[in-house]
């Protein structure tokens, strides 16, 4: 029960923050030096045409009125109409967003699959060669821009060895899994570098604790000790770190889409940017913010499940 109330409160917070973000975006959009009409028509438009378009878009109304209709639209799920595609933004997003979501989930799964074993091995073999090797990776990993790692992976696995497609999204579950693997891996290389360091440290601290000694004294050992006692305690701080990093990870995913020519919102926002398609850029920004807020909420809830000591305030 307490947990439901907690979730409710956090949802409220999510909504408020989203509102703040939308306000921020609205203000920024109206700080543009040129009006939509000018941007759409470019050099070729006559002043009359510009005025006409601006009027059609409601751009010449007082700012408060514009804001009200903007908010009204948001509440109905209307994010405006894309200049580029001449269609509602929400329609465009409906096609592109699933691709990005799939990639994001894939990346998260890979993160977990890679980080936990690496950190555990490094902690168990502390100060041995394996540990040093695993600890050295973040030193290099933090400097590797995702788009470059993606390119390298492309060179090695798609061009030289032809194991994975060199871009684009193949249909079907199998096709999806194959085409999204390298992009997800790109993001995992960076993320796991940071997460592994944190988890390793956390595991080392947990290993020093009395309850691990007690468990070993009971005869608990090996996998059961790691999975039943060490990890549940050790992942908790790393989960917090994941919350903080998540926004950055999504950013990386968006960029990686361009490297691999994936039809997600990352590629879309770049296109939109280049043609000054304000509604589309703004809509995508709002959606990604919502995505991150929801993910943080999920992580927080998971946190309370994992650690019963957390007081649900």
């Amino acid at each position: 029960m307490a947990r439901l109330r907690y979730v409710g409160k956090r949802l409220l917070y999510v909504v408020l923050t989203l509102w703040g973000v939308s306000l921020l975006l609205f203000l920024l959009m109206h700080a543009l030096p040129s009006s939509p009409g000018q941007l759409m028509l470019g050099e070729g438009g006559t002043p009359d045409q510009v005025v006409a378009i601006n009027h059609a878009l409601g751009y010449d109304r007082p700012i408060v009125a514009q804001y009200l209709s903007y908010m009204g639209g948001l509440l109905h799920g209307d994010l405006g109409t894309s200049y580029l595609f001449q269609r509602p933004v929400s329609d465009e997003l409906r096609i592109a967003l699933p691709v990005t979501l799939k990639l994001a989930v894939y990346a998260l799964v890979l993160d977990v699959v890679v980080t936990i074993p690496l950190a555990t091995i490094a902690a168990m073999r502390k100060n041995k060669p394996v540990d040093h090797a695993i600890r050295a990776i973040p030193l290099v990993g933090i400097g590797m821009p995702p788009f470059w790692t993606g390119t390298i992976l492309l060179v090695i696995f798609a061009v030289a060895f032809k194991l994975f497609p060199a871009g684009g999204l193949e249909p079907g579950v199998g096709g999806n899994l194959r085409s999204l693997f390298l992009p997800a891996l790109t993001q995992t290389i960076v993320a796991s570098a940071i997460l592994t360091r944190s988890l390793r440290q956390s595991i080392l601290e947990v290993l020093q604790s009395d309850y691990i000694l007690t468990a070993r004294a009971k005869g608990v050992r090996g996998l059961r000790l790691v999975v039943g006692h060490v990890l549940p305690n050790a992942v908790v701080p790393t989960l917090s770190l994941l919350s903080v990093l998540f926004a950055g990870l999504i950013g990386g995913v968006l960029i990686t889409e361009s490297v691999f020519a994936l039809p997600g919102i990352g590629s879309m926002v770049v296109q939109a940017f280049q043609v000054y398609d304000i509604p589309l850029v703004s809509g995508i920004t709002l959606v990604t913010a919502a995505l991150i807020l929801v993910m943080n909420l999920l992580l927080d809830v998971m946190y309370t499940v994992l650690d019963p000591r957390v007081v649900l305030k």
Partner: protein
Amino acid sequence: MTSITDGELQPQPLAAGDGGIDATPDGAIRRRRSAKLIVGLGILCIYVIMAVLAPVVAPYNPLAQQIPDALAHPSLHHLLGTDQLGRDVLSRIIYGARVDLVAATAASVGACMVGTLIGLLTGYAGGWLDVALTRVMDMVQTIPSFTLLLVLLLVLGPGARSLVIALIVTHWVVYARLIRGSVLTLRSQDFISAAWLAGLRVPRILLRHLLPNVGRQAVTYLASDIILAVTAIASLGYLGIGIQPPTAEWGSMINDGQDFLSSNWWLSVAPGVVVVLLGLGLALVSDSFNERKDRL
């Protein structure tokens, strides 16, 4: 993996602590740390030289096109070959430091200053100002920096100056939170109350007493932030945003090279290696600073 599932755990030393504080003599630890520092600083020096002395160090003009010599393989004339317009790759990389590194440093230092200022203010003032600014920080951090950068660049227009400003707006929050946290902790400590009671005014207290203590943390983060900024600039450059061609910029060079991955793969790989090495240098330096701090 057999040792994990079947046998014993590797038990931990009694004298707990990481960073090599085990049953090894002190000297070895110190030597390891200064090795890190020296290597890191060495790497950074190279980059600074590249940026500052580019006209002296680079063999060619980075913008000079020699179409007949396009896509040449590495040779004595062109140590890293030439790109699709015949420009010397090595020179472009060297001049790239002027763009990427300088812009990134400017952005990080700017974000550090802005963030520190706001952090100090909000931490010390408290009240509704604190609450409001913290909400703003939440909002800025909720938007992925990539999309926020795009929005800001739409507003600010193209060019290096807008890029730096946009980066400052995206990056200041971490510093602000860091500083605010330290301020809140220190604020409750006695020596601040003592200073206030002795009659020092608020700005003086901030500058003299709080800043030195919290500033160290900010500067430590600065190293990671610079590499994040370089990555951001290069990512945008890769996408054709921000720094515009024909300026030599590492990210756009990687993009240019992507068309020739099978024949001239180093065109894309080399600039990336340059970024990675910079990251390595910064990481080594900031790591050794961290370890030194822990020992205090």
